[in-house]
Each structure stands twice: as C-alpha cells, then as structure tokens.
C-alpha cells in the first residue's frame, strides 16, 4: 500500500484497465452459495464440501506461487501435512483444543518451515524449483513415515475435536462438522480469500507478476526478486498449513500420505483444472476436483484412471482450465478480444 507510484491518483486509471474484481466476486458468490447449502443439502454433501474448503484455501495460496509468481512447486502438500500434524500434535499430545490456537500454530509452523525451505528453493526456477520442493516434500514424508515414535508412522496421528471460539460443541461428529465447523471454515475461507485478493492487487502482487514475466527485467527496475519470491512462498505455505488443519479436523487424522508427492501433484492438478491464470480458478478447480473424484469413485474403483484421463485431456485441449475456457467462450460471444 505504501508504494507511491501506485497510490497516486487511482482515478486517473481508465476504467477498463482498473483491476476487475471478477475473480473475487466469483469466489465470494461461491462462498455465499455454500453458506446457503446447509438449508437444502444432505450431510454427505456438506461433508464433501469441507475438504473442498481446505483445498480451496490451500489452492488460494498455491496460486500465489504458481499462477502469479510463476513458480511450480511439486512439494506443496508438505505444508498441508505440516498444518495437519500441527493440529494432531497439539490436540492429541498436548491437549490444546482451541481451534484458533491450532490455526495459529499451523500457520506459524508452516510459515517457519517455508522460510527455511524457501530460502534454499526460491533461488531456482522452473524444473529445478519443482524438483527441489519435491525433494523437501518427500524428505518430510519419509520423516513422518519412519519416525514412528514421534509421528505415529503410517498410522498417522489422531486429531481430536477442537473447541471453536473456546466453546465446546455437543452432538455427533457429523453434526459438529456440518454445523458449526462448516460455517467457521467457510468464514475463514472468505476472510482468507479477501486477504489473498488484497495481496494479489497490492504492489507486492504486481512485483510478483513482474517477476513471473521476466525476472531479469524486474530485478533491473529494482524488484527484490529473492525477497519477493520468498515472501510469496511463505504466504502460500501459511495458506497451505491452514488448509491442512481444516482437512485434518475433517478426517480426524493426520497421516503421512498428506505429504506424499502425488498429493502435491493433485494440488497442481486442481490449479490447472480451474485455471491458474485467474484468481478464483484454482479454488473452483479444487471444488470440481473434490466433487468429480467423489463422483467417479462412486461409480468405479478405477477412478485414478478416469482422473488421469481427465488430466491428460485437460492439458492437451484446455490448458487454461475451466475458467480460462469459459472466459474465452464469453469473450467470443461478446465479439472477441
């Protein structure tokens, strides 16, 4: 906000060049729709929406790194696992049940881990960045998997029911998850979505875009490439950690598979499915992914084959994802660009 060249007379910017808040409205519209869902939807559908909220938050962060900064991480699931294990360790080992504290711990832990890993990773771009993040993700996975005494190994760690706003909620697990926790998570999704919108529209977001387009030129005009990339990495990790906490509370379990590289691959899948070039695209990709996977799993046990096929089709024919394709169709109807 403090950047002078941006703050001077915003009215001077012609209207069509001003950032169109389409993506934000799309996301908020989706969240409002989801807030109304409990009135009509079955508990099953609501339980399906919870992983979506978790992934949606994680994807908002992931896209800051991938879509805006142009860094493809193939180890981002690491941060979901950090968030999940933070929640698991605090609830089942230390007896801390306040969800707010869990979120703060998850955000803090993944931010710190990201600071250390990011300082090593963001010097590299493209495939090297992808491979290095993958290596760190798998490093964490094998730590979780092999150090049974600390992490519970392949059994994972249980996540107990947290207190929301310091209050204990009665009722069965489903009632808790589809009731108070659902609204809580949704509100969090909305707040984090707003925050991410501010971040992407800020001078900082502009710096990141400049880095994506041409890091050399950006550095030449004074963008601190390393610091900006590192900050983006840490922010995206914090979002990942919070998303991971929501996932872990939903399933009641933190297990090492969360950090496995194919899980990171799924995150990239969601981002590209929705369209990484847009603000709300990746979150919508997460929604479509969660619903599609659930649907395909219900009709065939060979759901991976179908999902893989969808991915191949998507990459070949719809590289801009769902939102990019819809945008292109709309533009064509309105006389094209």
């Amino acid at each position, binding site marked *: 906000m403090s950047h002078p060249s941006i703050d001077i007379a915003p009215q001077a910017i012609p209207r069509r060049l001003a950032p169109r808040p389409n993506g934000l409205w799309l996301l908020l519209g989706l969240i409002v729709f989801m807030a109304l869902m409990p009135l009509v939807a079955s508990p099953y559908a609501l339980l399906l929406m919870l992983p979506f909220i978790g992934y949606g938050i994680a994807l908002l962060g992931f896209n800051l790194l*991938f879509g805006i900064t142009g860094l*493809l991480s*193939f180890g981002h699931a690491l941060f979901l696992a950090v968030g999940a294990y933070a929640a698991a360790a605090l609830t089942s080992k230390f007896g801390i049940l306040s969800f707010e504290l869990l979120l703060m711990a998850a955000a803090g832990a993944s931010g710190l881990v990201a600071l250390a890993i990011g300082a*090593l990773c963001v*010097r*590299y771009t*493209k*495939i*090297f960045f*992808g*491979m*290095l993040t*993958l*290596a*760190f993700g*798998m*490093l964490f996975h*094998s*730590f979780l998997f*092999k*150090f049974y005494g600390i992490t519970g190994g392949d059994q994972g760690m249980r996540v107990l029911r947290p207190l929301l706003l310091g209050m204990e909620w009665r009722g069965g697990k489903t009632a808790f998850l589809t009731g108070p926790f659902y609204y809580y998570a949704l509100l969090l999704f909305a707040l984090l979505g707003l925050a991410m919108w501010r971040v992407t529209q800020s001078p900082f977001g502009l710096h990141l875009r400049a880095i994506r387009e041409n890091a050399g030129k950006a550095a030449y005009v004074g963008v601190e490439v390393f610091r900006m990339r590192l900050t983006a990495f840490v922010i995206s990790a914090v979002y990942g950690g919070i998303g991971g906490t929501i996932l872990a509370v939903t399933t009641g379990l933190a297990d090492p598979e969360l950090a*496995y*590289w*194919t899980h990171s*691959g799924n995150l*990239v*899948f969601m981002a*590209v499915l929705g369209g990484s070039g847009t603000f709300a695209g990746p979150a919508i990709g997460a929604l479509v992914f969660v619903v599609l996977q659930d649907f395909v799993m219900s009709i065939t*046990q*060979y*759901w*991976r*084959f179908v*999902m*893989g*096929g*969808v*991915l*191949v089709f998507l*990459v*070949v024919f719809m*590289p801009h994802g769902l939102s990019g394709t819809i945008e292109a169709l709309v533009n064509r109807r309105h006389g094209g660009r």
Partner: protein
Amino acid sequence: MTELVDVFLGGTFHAAVLFLVAAGLQLVFGVQKIVNLACGSFYALGAYFGITAVGIAIKLGMPPLLFFPVLIVAGLAIGLVGLPIERVLRTIYRRDESYQLLITFGFLLMFQDAFRYLWGATPRTMDNVYLAYGTAQVLGVRVPTYNLLVIAASIAIAAGLGLFLERTKTGRIVRATAENRDMAEGLGINASKIFAIVFTVGCMLGTVGGALVVPSGAASLDMAVDLVVESFAVVVIGGLGSMRGAVVGALIVGLMRAAAISLMPELEMLSVYLVVVVVLILRPAGLFGKVAA
C-alpha cells in the same frame, strides 16, 4: 568386511536397475526437455509384464534357465507402449513445462489403475526362477548369480547407449536434435521421428529395468510412484540430461540406500533426499549437469 561387501553388492544391484530407469528419464529430458513422471509406470509395467511373460514361457515348456533372455525381450517388447504415448505428448512439446509435468502425472495415474485392472491389487511375485542360476561367492559373500547378471546387463546397456549416442550417425542426429531442434529440422532431420524413437527407447529402458528387478522382489502398485522419486533423486544428483550423471547418481542413491538399510533402517529414504538437497544447494545443476540458464 563381509557386511561392507554385502552393502556394496546390494547397492550396486539396486543402482543397476535405477540407472536404467534414470537413463530413460535423462534421454527423454535431454532430447524432448520433458521430465517424465510416468517413468515409474514404465518400470512397473516392465515388472508386471515380465512376470506374465516368464509365466507363459515356462508354461510353454521353456527351461527356467532361459528366463533371463525372456525378461529382456519382454521388457523391450512392452516398451513399445511408448510410441502411442509419444503421440499424445507431441501435442505439448512447445508448452510450458508445468503442463508437461502434469500430463505425465496424468499418465502415471492412468497406468496405476491399468495395473490394478490387469494384474490385481495384491503384489505379484515370480517364484522359482530367481535362484535358477544358483549363487556365487564374491569376497566371502553369497549372492544370487542373477544379481550379478543384472549388474552386468546394466553395464552392457550403459556402454551400448554411450556408444550409440557418441559413435553412430543416428546417435549424432539425436544429440543434434537435443541441442537445437529447429536447427536440426532446418538441416533436414525428421525431428518428429527422432522424438518418437527417443521416447520409445527411454520407455524401453524403464520397462527392461522393471523386468530385470522383478525376480528378486515383487511387482506392486506402489512401485511406480516410489521409483519416480528415487529416479528423480538420481537425475538431480547426477544432473538433468547427463548420462554420466545417471551412472554416478544411480550408484550414489543405490549405495546410500543399501548402507542406510544395514546401519539405520529409519534413514533409508531420508538419507537419499538429504543427498539430493545437499547436491541441489551446492550444485543446483547436479554433479554432471550443465549450469542452468
């Protein structure tokens, strides 16, 4: 002393197989600039198909002693699956590398379920042939002769591949295409054909690797995704696109793992990733890689 020899032999056996898969990965990256996540699937495909092929061969009355050549032929034959896959990949050669990674990730998922459909979810083993060649004494340690055969085969393939790339005309054309596709095409080289050949050969290296490893263990659904990370480690340590790097990287990863398993089993894969991280930090382009642009 015997323990050391044990680790060395076990590590080299693992390295021999890893090298084959990693060499396939390197070849494809070197020429097509695609990091093929599906390389692990080719490896698993070779393993499953190897079991089936040897089973059929023995049923047809072939003596068990011939199973080694059967495995190699089976690996080479099923490697032809690379041709149709290359047809699909062809559409995205000029795209951003994130899409290339993703499409091969899609293939990996598809293969995973294809294996489940064709061979079932329980691990499959090949019995009775692993020790058909007996065992051999190496410096006071008993090893199955088969392991030594695999190591020898891998060395032979490495040498053959090196000779092919360095000495033959086609090899020179492959290297020229890798260096600059447009220039090569300008000189009248059919780059599409070269790409198809290279990808299929890369695929065959993976399937042969899988076919060779399976008598000593089992073919399972996890082997594809697990091996991807290991062969990634190999190419990152060795340097992307470098064949020498694949040899050295495979040896490092293979020996590291064998040593870790005998000293501290918890560190099995952790040690490998640690080496990867250290190498990437000190030499981001890997031990033999060209410096990244």
